[in-house]
């Protein structure tokens, strides 16, 4: 049934700058909003042809917060940040790579 995908079991705010995802396979990870925003995959933050990063990571405030986080279908989430770019759709695959463990 080719549902070989990362799925979220729970998602919760940990403090003003961090949220925690518990993945369906039991792995949990804390995500700092500024670290996630530095990986923004949107077309404005990356050159779509070359893949070169256009976003200056230094422009991301370490204390950036979120307004809300919502799912995009069953494959990604979208974060409305208080500052900076909120256009990115953060795929679950990408978020899992930030844990450092990739699904086989």
């Amino acid at each position, binding site marked *: *049934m080719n549902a070989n995908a990362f799925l979220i079991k729970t998602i919760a*705010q940990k403090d003003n700058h961090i949220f925690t995802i518990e993945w369906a396979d039991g792995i949990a990870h804390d995500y700092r909003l500024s670290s996630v925003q530095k990986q923004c995959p949107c077309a404005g933050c990356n050159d779509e042809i070359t893949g070169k990063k256009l976003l200056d990571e230094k422009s991301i405030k370490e204390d950036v917060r979120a307004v809300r986080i*919502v799912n995009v279908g069953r*494959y990604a989430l979208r974060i409305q940040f208080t500052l900076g770019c909120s256009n990115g759709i953060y795929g679950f695959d990408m978020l899992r790579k930030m844990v450092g463990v990739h699904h086989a």
Partner: protein
Amino acid sequence: MPLQMYQEQKSPPKPKIKNIIGIAAGKGGVGKSTITVNLALTLKQLGYSVGVLDTDIYGPSIRKMLPEDRMPTQKGELIAPALCQGIKMISMAYFRKENEAAVVRAPIANGLIKQFLNNVEWGNLDFLLIDFPPGTGDIQLTISQQAHLTCALMVTTPQDVAVMDVRKAMNMFNQVKIPVIGVVENMSYFLQQSNQEKVYIFGKGGGERLARESEIPFLGAIPLDPKICASGDQGKSMYSDENHPAVAPFKELAKNFIGHLDLLSSQHDHLQAFELVWKEVSAS
């Protein structure tokens, strides 16, 4: 008199619907609507509560195949679906005159789909079957992102030309991580009345090959039969004729479909939809 459309309103996901199934092919003419209607009627026969959402804005055909006993109604910005032989249904066909074309660009069509997804009061349902429009474009992506699909059921006909496009639609579902529950082959064979021999008019085994190569279940084969066509054209349920040739194949399809859906449900313990609203946390 066509109903007036309201502006899209935000509303929460619909937890009262147990299974939301996308019925798709990636191409037109394979019989997605025929499969949707007859699978809905079969699930209803089996005692389930069923809804049908026809998302083909440009060529909605389900209203003709499943005529309403009660028209949809509007309460403020919410739409109560039509009732058709005990099946709840919403379609663009209720909002246009029969021969009037929906001449709208993609953003408008997307807005209409979002209203269907967010503003229809389905109530408690075991199954909501979403009849996808052909293609793998903007509308299909909107449905995939916003309809909280449990899985997709692929419809194909046996010939390679059809299978090729269905494969692309399956690829789209793989990209958006929606599990494909299986393949059903429509217009699979013609049963000759004289000798009960099956004639494979469009070739043999395309659907099974697709299922095998994609490692997904083959859920059933529906025959090519004038009675199926007539049921659709006349808006009559195949269950009104106990000798209808489609009853047995659709019951087999429904049995396989429900079996694999149970299997899929048991595999996942995860959030279907969420909204995390950020709060100020004071330092302790």
